[in-house]
């Protein structure tokens, strides 16, 4: 992407004011999308972003600048701005010897989306629209979106690292609106993978569309959700966001270091039910949160965070692992070259257990079954978190009965982790997600088997 000698000189310029560490992150990202709405292919969009972010670290201070100008002059200006921002008393000329490290790709990309004709992408949208509407006359509106991106990155730093990655993602989303006696309800289904257009050899868009329509239609009969505290059974694949919010963010070392996590100082302690083993794994081939290297050049890893309920590890980025004198964990990510990296999750999931999923439901007298969760949010300092139910049912006398309307669930992370009293053997990965932190969004994956939380507060309106 850039000449090695130019990178070396840019790093040199970045270190001129006495920086201890300098890094050049170059990104070239091409994305395309196509949208069908209201029965019509509305718009195709193409984008190209290209630029470099340069950071300089002095002590605990990081200076940062970015530029869309990848000429040597443009890079030098950015390097000088970053260096000025991080300036210290020192100075002098430092030279950097770069050693190129080849990246082992996670998996092959069979069909680069950029090589696929736009007509083929549009055809997927029409097929999805037709399949969703065929689910029933109550489906009144369908929005289908196709998206792909190819993100090529280069990371070079003053430790001599020079490496890169080529990340391809493909996504298909169908949103539907059903109309009935009780008003409108919505359905949503998405499939996203860190692969190319071969996604559609593995997934039929008709299946995605039908699932979306089924959700909307099911909710037309939904009753108001209960209020109060009840046992909650979460279905396989649908509830990974529970762990993302309940403890994932709280295990990010930047938040730990600032005292903003309820998991601070609890390493080695029993923080969850012995049934809980939680993993963050950036190496899961094809999964939405996967990559070969993170945005600081560190290879993705499989990190066990909680083993049989015992807290075994946090997640780290370059700065935090440097401070603590330990290896990086492959969790340093950034939204784009315009952002500084920080500690982020990749694919976060709970390992399957031994129980029969049917037995978990049958042994729940009165509760809620959530087959699909939407987004969520957590306050890591208090541990309080919420997440939305996008498809849920009542459990009455050990059986799943009527659907309930949408609402949030609220709980407290450490308490919920210890309240997990049954875990099924039916592990499944969930939907592609976008995780927001400090204004930056990055793609993440999650997964869970069927599991039960003894008590969660349901944010409904029914008594």
């Amino acid at each position, binding site marked *: 992407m850039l000449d090695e000698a130019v990178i070396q000189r840019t790093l040199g310029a970045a270190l001129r004011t006495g920086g201890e560490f300098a890094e050049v992150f170059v990104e070239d990202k091409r994305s395309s999308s196509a949208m069908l709405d209201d029965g019509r*292919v509305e718009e195709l969009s*193409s*984008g*190209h972003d290209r630029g470099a972010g340069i950071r300089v670290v002095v002590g605990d201070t990081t200076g940062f600048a970015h530029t869309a100008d990848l000429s040597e002059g443009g890079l030098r200006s950015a390097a000088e701005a970053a260096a000025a921002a991080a300036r210290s008393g020192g100075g002098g000329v430092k030279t950097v010897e770069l050693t190129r490290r080849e990246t082992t790709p996670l998996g092959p990309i069979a069909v680069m989306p950029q090589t696929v004709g736009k007509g083929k992408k549009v055809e997927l949208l029409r097929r999805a629209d037709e399949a969703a509407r065929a689910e029933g006359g109550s489906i009144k509106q369908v929005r289908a979106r196709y998206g792909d991106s190819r993100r090529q990155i280069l990371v070079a730093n003053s430790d001599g690292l020079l490496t890169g990655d080529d990340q391809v993602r493909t996504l298909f989303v169908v949103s539907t609106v059903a109309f009935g006696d009780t008003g409108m309800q919505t359905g949503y289904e998405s499939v996203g993978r860190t692969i190319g257009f071969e996604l559609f050899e593995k997934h039929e868009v008709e299946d995605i569309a039908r699932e979306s329509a089924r959700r909307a239609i099911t909710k037309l009969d939904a009753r108001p959700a209960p209020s109060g505290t009840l046992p909650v059974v979460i279905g396989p694949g649908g509830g990974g966001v529970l762990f993302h919010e309940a403890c994932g963010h709280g295990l990010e070392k930047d938040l730990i270091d600032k005292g903003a996590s309820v998991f601070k100082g609890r390493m080695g302690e029993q923080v969850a039910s012995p049934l809980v083993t939680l993993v963050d794994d950036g190496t899961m081939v094809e999964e939405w949160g996967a990559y070969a290297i993170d945005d600081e050049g560190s290879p993705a890893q499989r990190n066990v965070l909680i083993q049989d309920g015992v807290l075994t590890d946090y997640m780290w980025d370059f700065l935090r692992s440097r401070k603590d004198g330990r290896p990086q964990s492959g969790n340093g990510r950034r939204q784009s070259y315009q952002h500084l990296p920080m500690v982020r999750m990749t694919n976060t999931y709970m390992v399957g257990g031994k129980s029969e999923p049917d037995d978990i439901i049958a042994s729940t007298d009165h509760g809620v079954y959530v087959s699909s969760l939407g987004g969520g*949010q957590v*306050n890591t300092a208090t541990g309080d978190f919420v997440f939305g139910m996008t498809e849920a049912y009542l459990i009455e006398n050990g059986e799943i009965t009527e659907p309930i309307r949408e609402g949030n669930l609220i709980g407290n992370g450490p308490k919920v982790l210890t309240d997990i009293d049954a875990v099924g053997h039916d592990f499944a990965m969930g939907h592609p997600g976008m995780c927001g932190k400090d204004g930056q969004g990055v793609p993440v994956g999650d997964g869970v088997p069927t599991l039960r939380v003894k008590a969660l507060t349901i944010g409904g309106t029914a008594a």
Partner: protein
Amino acid sequence: MTDLFEVADLVLAGTEGDEQVEAYVARSRDAQVRVYEGEVEQLSTAETLGVGVRVVRDGRQGFAYCGTFEPGAVREALVEARDNAAFAEHDEWAGLAEPDGVEPPEVDLWRSDLLEVPTERKVALAVELEHAIRSADPRITGVESCDYADATGELAVATTTGIRRNTRSTNCQLVGYSLADDGEASQTGFGFSLGRSFDDLDVEQAGRDAAERATRMLGAVKPQSAKLTVVLDPWVTAQVVGIVAGTLSAEEVVKGRSLFAERVGEQVGTPLLTLVEDPTDGRTWGASEIDDEGLASRRVPLIDAGVLAGFVHSTWTGRRTGTASTGSAVRGGFKSTPGASCRAVVPTPGQASPDDLIAGIDEGVLIQEVFGLHSGVNPVSGDLSTGAQGLRIRGGAVAEPLREFTIASTIQRLLIDIAALGNDLTWLPMSAAGITLVIDDVAISGQ
């Protein structure tokens, strides 16, 4: 420095035949300082720029963008947008904005003095805020982050249909996140101050708010489930009004996704409620002289004494519904095409102060923060459920803090159940201004 119209003209010069072409050219300069324990933790400076190109050809629209002004990339975006248009389906209402005779309001959003502020003063102010939070109360145990940020933004929109307008603005903000601890549990809070000029920032106020928001939650308990009167503070109301405003986009209406389609002229809420979309008011965060298609910003009545007055329109929704744009085209930046959306909703204030309103409530909850609105609200069905925290109201006065509960209703019910609005209109960095709002009969879910 490159003039934005020069870049726009480069795009328009590539027009072929009778196609319509639009160039949306944006540039911003940002500075951000984050301090931690008295030292600079991060300092970044950056310029972000780019061009979004729309082409409408034979009733088909295509779009492409590039994050640079480099002429080769800009020309490539036009070619790509034209190619994309060929794959869209014919739309009889497709078309770019045309001059509509409305002059942009005079809203002065640019303060050149902000550009002169040296980095040292920005750092010093952030350090001062951190100190203010820490020294405000002995129970404050930390400051998670303390940021100063400023930005200057410039925009030019030009089309082959005769639009040629530009605008620019400055803003700055100071935000601190606090941690408090009473030995039992931690609580968090935040405080901020906003302005267009550096001198607008009030570090004392931001520090007091951040400390108070965290410490007042110490000892919070989970309430029993109940139906109660809730009082939303302006920060919360602004978020709820933003959700209501989202359903008043003509785009959602014509695509059959709005609760309020077909209801113009009907009573949809309490007669106490009047909402106006007013980006011509320089005090709103979304204020602007023009919208994102280059048409003049203007006042749009949304709800008038509880009666639904109308929707906000872009050029496309205006054509499709046989009306006209209300100057409400909004984009997420140069990387996206415009939709119709509110950006500056202003509620009409009531008579009573927040204290007087609370004094009239025997049993209720003052909601001071909500979270999970994005996951707990379905603007199509109207279901609304959100995590919340706040203070118990007992006998007309605020009492103990409450946490880990939800409040739930529907958007439809909420508008009817509003019992009073305060006199405390508050300008916030959101798509709506805030105000104290009293709502009867809201489901609280806790123990």
